[in-house]
């Protein structure tokens, strides 16, 4: 039987969850024995196989139209979708900006920051993604597995990957269940 395929991508996050994934260290070889790691931000392949993957993993919340596209594509191409980390599960740190309007956030980021000179201006180009309210992954697409944590512990990630690679649904309890 072919090894199950795993693909991942990151959205409005800090890449910390993928760093934590790398923190499983040499255990990644055990994962590779059980599964076929396909498109990820840290491999050459950038998009999940059109033919579909068994497990899709997304880090980060949805904060613009590009994120929405990536999330929908991953959802349509994977059987099991994992929300990895607090941003994907809850909205996380980027969601702090939801307490303000998008206009306020953009003005703060591109005009009012102390390092911006007088020529500061809010980028607008049809090529650019349109910023939206920051949403947890499950507000945009259906999510099967939630792995909270900021970032989730490497041991937790290894547990989740090995369970999924062996066709089981991971259940997070005790030490593995951390919301921070």
């Amino acid at each position, binding site marked *: 039987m072919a090894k199950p395929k795993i693909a991942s991508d990151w959205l409005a996050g800090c890449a910390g969850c993928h760093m934590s994934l790398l923190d499983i260290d040499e255990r990644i070889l055990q994962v590779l024995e059980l599964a076929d790691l396909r498109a990820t931000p840290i491999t050459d392949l950038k998009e999940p196989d059109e033919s579909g993957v068994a497990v899709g993993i997304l880090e980060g919340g949805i904060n613009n139209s590009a994120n929405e596209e990536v999330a929908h594509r991953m959802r349509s191409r994977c059987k099991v979708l994992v929300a990895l980390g607090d941003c994907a599960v809850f909205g996380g740190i980027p969601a702090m900006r939801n307490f303000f309007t998008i206009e306020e956030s953009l003005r703060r980021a591109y005009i009012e920051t102390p390092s911006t000179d007088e020529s500061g201006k809010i980028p607008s180009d049809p090529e650019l993604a349109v910023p939206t309210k920051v949403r947890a992954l499950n*507000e945009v697409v259906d999510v099967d597995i939630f792995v909270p944590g900021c970032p989730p512990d490497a041991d937790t990630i290894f547990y989740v990957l090995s369970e999924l690679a062996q066709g089981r649904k991971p259940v997070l309890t005790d030490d593995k*269940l951390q919301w921070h």
Partner: protein
Amino acid sequence: MVSITIDGKQIQVPEGTTVLRAAESADIKIPTLCDHPQLTPYGGCRLCLVEVEGARTLQPSCTLPVMPNMVVHTDTEKVTDARKFVLTLIFSERNHFCMYCQVSGGDCELQNAAYAEGMTHWPLQTNYSPFTVDASNPYFVIDNNRCILCRRCVRACAELVGNFTLGIEDRGANSVLVADLGNPIGESTCISCGTCVQVCPTGAIIDRQSAYNGREQDLTHIKSICTACSIGCGLNVLTRDNRVVRIDGDWDAQVNHGLLCAKGRFEPLVNDKERIATAMVRKGARMKAATTKEALNAAVNLIKAAEKDGAMVGAFITASASAEELHQFIQLFENVKNARYGTIGSIGYLQSMKTLALLAKIERESDLIRVTDSDCVLVIGADLILDHQVAGFMVKRNLPAGTKLILASNDDNQLAPFADAILDTKMGLVGALEDLVVVMAEKKTDLTSNAAKAAAYLKEAQSVGVIIGEIAVGSSTAKVLEAVTSLLDKLSSDGKTVKYITLKGQSNAYAAYLLGLDKPVDFHDLETVFVFQSEEILDQTFIQELETVPNLVVQSCYTNSLTAKAQVVFPSTIWAENQGSYINLEGKVQHSNQIIRPTESIPTLVETMQGLAKSLGSKVDSNWSDGLDRHKIVTVPKL
């Protein structure tokens, strides 16, 4: 007793017990957020819902009294689903993102509840409405975004402290915690007692000092007592790396039942005074750092020189020192020729406690809580808002339930706005009290004068509690005592249960009095003076009395005008670095424990006194209870 079944367990509990408490008594855990053992049940969070056989809907166990043969289930699918739903509603209502919260990782009851239900996320969309953050108090911050509206703080402020500062403004999801009528907390009637901080289950009210200094489970917890006044409140002190991180009230303490005032909870942590680090000996115009041994030699030489010249030696110790320190102080100086010694501030007023106990027909003083839990409380010559604040809390919190407060005080008493009747002290305290006794004897029902109002309240009351402050004011002491006595006698003869207590001043003033340090010291002709000051703040008159003394030896924690002109200065440990016995205002012997280690070069008062005694060849020991004059005891414990 009522018999009920919870999760198949048969339990017998007294009538009126809530299902929650009944479950607790049988070690069945029902999660709650708004419940707190010290507060009346509120039923606000709905996390404690249980299934009761025969009931149409799930019932909140915290407000549901047991009924005979009730059958309760706490772990059915219906119950756990409801809990998850309740938690989902709470989490999605405000900013409950754990990753940037100070209490995450064990100190948050909300997070713990979610973990206990195995929740990996909440399925509802979060409501991103911003709420106010109030950082106007110097000691703590209120963040309404983290608030779950459990109202523990509101209830604690009212029911435990009697301050009624905190309240909820607006309705439903818009409800916010406010002080008074919406003032910033720092400009409100808040007295910074911090009880709200201690009861808050989430990160909505956090203490500035301990925030981000580690989780409770990673800190060392040490029980001790507060030495700021004679109440001697029980503390639970949290430390890390030999540093005090936070002070909580000890819920189990008999004296204060968890209450603390700002002086006990917050002030010890925000000390910016200049600490003395080493001993110093004067060389001409300059103070030179010295070893403790050198300083001890210099101090002993001053005593020896004085003894040789027949000069007068004076010695003063803080009445906040431990009983061991007070005892050794006496042992040390009773063996010094021409020595006069006593406490830094006079505690002569304590002598009137005994006079009062002898004069009045009620023999002993009572416990504070029994005094304040009377139908009518009379406060004479004390401002419980400024001093002995926890006693003030215990009085104020009973007022809404109908306890009447009568005030007799010479000063602008801050308790006045809470009083039901304020005796007119234009003719002095004595006049006011005598007038009250006269009015009580009359059969008038005219309520126009304050004395008549007070007399009417006293007449209605079954029990009367009397709190007496430092009544020994000048020459009228004897008369005040007589007036208080005749009032107490009048109340007893009217068939009232009368309980009274005198406030003893500094934390160990009562012990100092029992050890015989209550006699005033004559400052005349003192040439060599020892001041064991430790943390006490000196009175200007005391400093002036010592203005012309040529040889001063001071042991103090902080630099001040006395240490500046002393010949020898010893550093001193602060309360947290020291340990010893204290006798509180109720006569309870309590132990102040060492919480952090002092720097090696900093001695305790006892260590300095032992060093001096050794060089002088006199003997000191720590059997302080041998030194107590038991005839002077006015409180119930036999000590």
